[in-house]
C-alpha cells in the first residue's frame, strides 16, 4: 500500500523537492562562479571588436512569458553596448517588444548616451515588407519613433538612414517571427552579421546556424546572461548570476530523480521476471 501511495504521489514529491531546491538558493542569495561558454563569448568578442560609431540593432522578439529567460540577456547586452562608443537602434517583431524595450532602458545605466543621438527606439515591425524596406530607407518605414518624434529629426537616423549599414543585429527571439526573418532578409541578402539570444528550448534548433557560421553567437537562456555579467564585470545587474545556484541545484535534482527512477524501474523489472520464473 505504501508503494502504491508513493507511486500515486510521485509527481507531487517531485514538485515539492524541485520547489525546495529552487527556493532555498534564491532566498539564501548563494552565488556561483559561472564559466563562460564559447557561444556567449563569441557574441561578447564580436561587440568588443566593433569599430567606434558602428550601428547595432537590437530586436526584442519576445513577450512577457519569456521575460525570465530573455530579459536578463537584453539588460546585460544593452548595458554592454552603452559602455561602448556605438549607436543602437531598438526594434521589435513582437507586440510586447516596445514595452520591454522601455523596461530595459529604465533598468540600465545609460552613462552619457543621449536619445536620438546615440540610440533610438523605432518600435514594432508589423510585417516583412517593413523589415526588408528599412534596409534601404528607415525613415520611409518608420516615419516616427515610439514617442511619435519624426525620425528624420534624430541624429542617429541621419547618420544611418538605411539599416543595411548595420554592423550587428542581435535578436532576442522567443519564437517566430524572430531569427529566421533576419537570417533570410538581412544576413543572406546583405551579409549583415546576426546573433541571437534564445531560450533554452530553442537553442538546439539554432546550433546548425551557429555551426555553419550564419550567426556569430548564441546567448542561451538566463545562463548566458550570467556569463555576460561576468564578462562585462557587472555581476547581478540583470539578476541572472544569483539564479545560477538554483538552476544548478534543479538540474542536479532532475539527474538524481531520473537515476533513482531507473534504479527502481530496473529493480521492479527484475522482481517481476523472478516472480514469472
Amino acid at each position, binding site marked *: 500500500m505504501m508503494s502504491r501511495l508513493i507511486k500515486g504521489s510521485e509527481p507531487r514529491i517531485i514538485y515539492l523537492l524541485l520547489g525546495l531546491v529552487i527556493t532555498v538558493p534564491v532566498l539564501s542569495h548563494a552565488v556561483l562562479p559561472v564559466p563562460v561558454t564559447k557561444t556567449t563569448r563569441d557574441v561578447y568578442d564580436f561587440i568588443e571588436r566593433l569599430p567606434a560609431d558602428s550601428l547595432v540593432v537590437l530586436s526584442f522578439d519576445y513577450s512577457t512569458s519569456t521575460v525570465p529567460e530573455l530579459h536578463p540577456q537584453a539588460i546585460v547586452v544593452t548595458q554592454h553596448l552603452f559602455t561602448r562608443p556605438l549607436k543602437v537602434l531598438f526594434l521589435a517583431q513582437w507586440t510586447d517588444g516596445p514595452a520591454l524595450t522601455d523596461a530595459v532602458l529604465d533598468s540600465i545605466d545609460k552613462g552619457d548616451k543621449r536619445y536620438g543621438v546615440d540610440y533610438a527606439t523605432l518600435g514594432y515591425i508589423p510585417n516583412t515588407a517593413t523589415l526588408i524596406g528599412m534596409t534601404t530607407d528607415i525613415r520611409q518605414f518608420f516615419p516616427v519613433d515610439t514617442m511619435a518624434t519624426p525620425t528624420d529629426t534624430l541624429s542617429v537616423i541621419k547618420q544611418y538612414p538605411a539599416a543595411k549599414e548595420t554592423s550587428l543585429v542581435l535578436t532576442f527571439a522567443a519564437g517566430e517571427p524572430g531569427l529566421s526573418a533576419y537570417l533570410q532578409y538581412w544576413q*543572406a541578402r546583405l551579409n549583415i552579421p546576426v546573433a541571437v539570444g534564445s531560450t533554452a*528550448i530553442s537553442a538546439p534548433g539554432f546550433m546548425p546556424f551557429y555551426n555553419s557560421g550564419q550567426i556569430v553567437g548564441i546567448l542561451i537562456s538566463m545562463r548566458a546572461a550570467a556569463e555576460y555579467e561576468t564578462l562585462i564585470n557587472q555581476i547581478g545587474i540583470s539578476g541572472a548570476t544569483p539564479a545560477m545556484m538554483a538552476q544548478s541545484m534543479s538540474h542536479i535534482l532532475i539527474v538524481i530523480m531520473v537515476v533513482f527512477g531507473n534504479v527502481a524501474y530496473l529493480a521492479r523489472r527484475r522482481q517481476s521476471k523472478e516472480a514469472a520464473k
Partner: protein
Amino acid sequence: MQQSIRNILNPSTDNCKKSAYVMFELAKGRMAQALLLMIVLTAIFAASRIASKRKLKTRGIPGIERLDKWIKQAADLNRPVFFTPGTGAVTTPDTLAALALLDHVAKRCAELSVRLIVANADFNVHQVTEDMVRNAYDKAGNGQLYSSDSVRYISGRQFAFAAGVMGLLRREKPALNIFVGDYQAEALEIAEAGRDEAIAQFGGTSNVDQLPFFMATCDHTLIGEELYTAQGYLTDDPHAISSLVGPDAGKIIAILLILAGALLASFGNQLISTFLKL
C-alpha cells in the same frame, strides 16, 4: 552569378510611342534553389503518379489508425473529444495540416454523436474551425450537439492560451485530447494537463524543439512530415495515398545530394556546395 536580360518589345520611335520593355533578373543566390525545387517537384509528382497507378501500400502510422477507435471509445464513455490546432496563424503549414485533421475528426465525432470541443489561439483559425465543426454536425444530422461553446477562442497570448486549455481539460475531462499544429512552449503544459485528465492523447508538430515533450506525454505523436501526410492516411482516396510517396522521392534526392557533397568535400572538392550557392 547575376544574369540580366533586357528584352525590348517595342523600340521607341517618336513622342507618341514609348518603349515598353521588361527588365528582370534572376535572384542572386537562389538559382540552384530554384533548379532543385523544380527537380524535387517533378520527383514528387512522378512518384505520386507511379504510386497511384501501382496502388502502392504505405507503412501506416499506428496512431492514425487508432484515432477512430479512440473516438468510438469517447462515444461509449459519453465523454467529449478535445482538439487544439496550436497557437500558429492560419497561414502556417502546421496549422493548415491540423485543420485538415480536424475536418476528419469533426466528421467522425458528428457521425458517432460525440461532443467535440475545439480551443483556438488565433481568431482567424477560430473562424475556420467554427465553420468546419458546425458544418460537420449539420451534415451528420446532429446539429443539436453543436453549441456556441463547442468552438472557443481562448487567447492569442501563449500562456494565457495554455492556462485556458488546462482549465478546460480539467473541467471537461475529455476521453481523447488531440493537439496537433504549431506549438511553442505551451505544448508541455497542455500535454501534462491532458495526460492527467484524458484517457488517450494524440499530438503532432513539426517544431523540433517541442517534439521531445510530445513524445514523452502522448500515446502517439506525429513527427514532422507525418503531420502533413496524416490526411492521406485517413482517406481512402488513392490520390491522397499516393501523395504520401511524393515527399519520399524528395528525401531520396536530398540524401543523395548530402552523401555526394560530403564525399566530395572529404576529398577537398567543393563542387556541390559551390553549386548550391548559385
